[in-house]
């Protein structure tokens, strides 16, 4: 558990990145596909489905059995290359696959039967869609001659999922189903990553075929650009060179594009302060002088001051979510926006881009880097120009410190638990969370330095994401320490997946920041609903340490400051899933806070500020 593993999971050879040396990954995959076709040719649609996953380089899938998907599971019985993790609930399968995708960088696979199996996956698919996480979902379906008849366990899965996938496929032919699964896999990974789905009627999977699936090929209509337009790049470089108060806003797309190295090099070379979005956490080391950590509703005061007062923002791989921007009318109102995104539909969707750079973050950052020297020459400028601004940002760090009180006579502060764990954990430990106050404290008080170490549900805000996401993360990076911060409310939503962590003997530490409430809702009720706490407090909840023991995990209870380090170390050193029930101050609130739709620059630092803004 304390063993030092490579800093980021090695995804070379699995991504679609083309500039690797020597034999391209595609060639290797092609050869392996040919070998498989020769050694054990597929004879049914179901075997084609499994073969397509093998040909795509998938290693693991998360699923739950059921009637209409049984032929595919039967074919899986013979696969030596794929490991199946049986989850307790399909929602757990989708979140585990999602986290696996975030950490490994390649599509996570989840599988379920028709009807309720498929609808239970939907939350996780929608979650992956909002956060652009690579994922493929395979769902059983009633036989094609029953489709449309309201047959047992029939749901229009393509219809239900279409709004939350990049594309949902309905397979109708045993000969083509394999390549359709391959295409769905490739599409999930191509360009802006995201979820795809293939619906698999039982007669199609049971049907015979002699067609051998090839390696995955993306749809011919889907062609995201790699390089940004050179003129726009030059113009953007000029804007940066002429700026007085520039910032880099690094989004989740930087991590998705494996562009963290390029981003770090760029920001350091030109000495531009870096703000991340929440999904962008880890793209830039938070312990670096240029880091202002993350901005938005509960972002740091200094990040929100900088993002409000900047005059030139290099925003990369971000969709300007409302939790980041607050009121768009007051968002970075002095700033020219350079927007780098691989999805052109994100350009000027929420915030107008003055310099649209449509392309892959890794490539565009290199293009920009190449253009900077000429831009500085033309403007008779240099990174020295930003010195005063950098100083201002540093001053803000002193003015708005992320501190909290730890009075001995009051219950445990959640921030302290997170901060101590961050100190004690491995540098490359992966943190996953549920959704709510605990998620904010985890992201604020853990120090992140590496990409793919922060795994959370951002856009959809799915309570219950924590328990299964830690499973997916651990299986994607078995050599890295995995910690899940959860809330008591979130934990209860998917607690059944703890049985999977025990069964698979996963060395994961769960820390429940337990305030016996849906704390974020309670905080809003106190702030904006006159303290009318409707359905936010739990009059009774289980004792989570004992619940953990009942599941076969190790349970700990943490109540006072003196035992924080000791309990954390005990939980960390337990070889298997451990659950720490940390009883925290139920009155603690998350600050800083920009109220929903508010002005980022007017973030509240305390409750009484809320009345003044």
């Amino acid at each position, binding site marked *: 558990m304390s063993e030092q593993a490579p800093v980021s999971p090695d995804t070379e050879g699995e991504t679609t990145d083309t500039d690797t040396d020597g034999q391209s990954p595609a060639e290797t995959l092609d050869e392996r596909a040919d070998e498989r076709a020769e050694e054990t040719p597929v004879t049914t649609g179901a075997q084609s489905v499994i073969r397509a996953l093998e040909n795509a380089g998938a290693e693991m899938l998360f699923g739950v059995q059921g009637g209409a998907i049984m032929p595919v599971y039967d074919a899986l019985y013979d696969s030596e290359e794929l490991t199946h993790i049986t989850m307790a609930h399909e929602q757990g399968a989708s979140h585990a696959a999602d986290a696996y995708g975030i950490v490994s960088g390649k599509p996570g696979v989840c599988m379920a039967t028709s009807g309720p199996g498929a609808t239970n996956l939907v939350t996780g698919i929608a979650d992956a869609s909002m956060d652009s996480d690579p994922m493929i979902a395979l769902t059983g379906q009633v036989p094609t001659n029953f489709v449309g008849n309201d047959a047992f366990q029939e749901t229009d899965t*393509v*219809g239900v999922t*279409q*709004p939350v996938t990049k*594309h949902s496929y*309905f397979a109708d032919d045993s000969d083509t189903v394999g390549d359709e699964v391959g295409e769905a896999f490739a*599409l999930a990974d191509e360009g802006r990553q995201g979820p795809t789905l293939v619906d698999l009627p039982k007669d199609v999977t049971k049907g015979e075929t002699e067609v051998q699936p090839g390696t995955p090929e993306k749809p*011919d*209509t*889907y*062609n995201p*650009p790699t390089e*940004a*337009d050179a*003129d*726009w790049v030059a113009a953007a470089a000029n804007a940066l060179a002429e700026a007085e108060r520039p910032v880099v806003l690094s989004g989740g797309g930087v991590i998705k594009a494996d562009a963290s190295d390029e981003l770090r090099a760029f920001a350091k070379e030109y000495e531009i302060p870096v703000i991340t979005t929440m999904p962008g956490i880890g793209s830039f080391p938070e312990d670096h002088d240029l880091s202002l950590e993350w901005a938005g509703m509960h972002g740091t*005061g200094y990040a929100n*001051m900088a993002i*409000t*007062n900047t005059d030139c923002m290099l925003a990369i791989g971000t969709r300007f979510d409302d939790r980041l921007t607050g009121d*768009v*009318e*007051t*968002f*970075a*109102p*002095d*700033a020219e926006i350079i927007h780098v995104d691989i999805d*052109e*539909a994100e*350009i*000027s969707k*929420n*915030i*107008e881009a003055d310099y*649209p*750079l*449509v392309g892959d973050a890794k490539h565009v950052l290199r293009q920009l880097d190449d253009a900077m020297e000429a831009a500085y020459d033309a403007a008779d400028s240099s990174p020295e120009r930003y010195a005063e601004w950098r100083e201002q940002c540093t001053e803000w760090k002193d*003015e*708005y*410190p*992320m*501190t*909290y*009180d730890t009075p001995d006579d009051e219950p445990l502060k959640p921030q302290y638990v997170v901060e101590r764990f961050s100190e004690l954990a491995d540098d490359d430990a992966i943190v996953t969370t549920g959704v709510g106050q605990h998620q904010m404290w985890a992201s604020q008080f853990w120090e992140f330095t590496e990409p793919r170490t922060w795994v959370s549900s951002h856009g959809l805000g799915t309570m219950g994401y924590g328990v299964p996401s830690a499973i997916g993360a651990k299986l994607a990076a078995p050599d890295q320490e995995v910690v899940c911060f959860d809330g008591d409310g979130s934990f209860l939503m998917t607690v059944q997946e703890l049985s999977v962590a025990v069964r698979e003997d996963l060395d994961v530490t769960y820390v429940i920041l337990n305030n016996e409430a849906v704390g974020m809702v309670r905080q809003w009720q106190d702030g904006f609903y006159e303290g009318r706490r409707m359905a936010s407090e739990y009059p009774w909840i289980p004792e989570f340490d004992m619940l953990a023991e009942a599941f076969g995990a190790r349970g700990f209870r943490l109540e006072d400051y003196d035992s924080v380090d000791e309990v954390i170390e005990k939980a960390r050193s337990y070889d298997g899933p451990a659950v720490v029930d940390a009883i925290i101050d139920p*009155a*603690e*609130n998350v*600050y*800083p806070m920009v109220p929903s739709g508010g002005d980022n*620059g*007017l*973030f*509240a*630092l*305390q*409750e009484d*500020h809320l009345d*003044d*803004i």
Partner: protein
Amino acid sequence: MTGGMPGPHPDERMRPEGRRNSQGIRIDPEVEATHQPRRAVLSTLVKHEPGVLSEVSALFSRRQFNIESLTVGATDDPEVARMTIVIEEPEPGIEQAKKQVRKLVPVISVEELEPQAVQRELVLVKVDGAKPDDVNAVADMYDGNVVDASAEAITVEITGSAQKVDAAIEAFDQFTVREVVRTGAAAIDRGAETLRAERRTDTTAASTAETATDD
């Protein structure tokens, strides 16, 4: 409640001078400027396969784009269908709609037609049959044809621009209109310009930057 951090009160902080409008566009704070909606015709080539219509129409509904009409029909290529989508949106919404449609996997290409493009729709109007000669005369005025007639009702077919069709329906009002069936617009660029099923190759920033026209 507890929690909270030290630091200057919101009123005591450095403030920017600028402002954006509700569309996220930087504006002069003194002059409030917003884009007015305009009508745009999007000619869209899609793969001729099941589910495409629902995928496109669902996109418009979930992103709250205001559709005036949507027609689907075959093209000279049996594997390709054409959707003609008429929307009314402010400029940023039109650009957004084009880019969102272009992202859909079965969509081959999306082009906005020139404002002067030829646009035609067909309407069938069923009116009372009491005055067949008068109905005929009005139909003639709009180059229409009587396609069905009985003692009680007459059905007239008229083709033309949306404005002409509107005017024709108004003119038939005098005969008591029983039913109106309109197709929505079919549209094609003037001159030698064509939009055929070539794979889209250019989705670069340059094309997104040139806002008003797309070709």
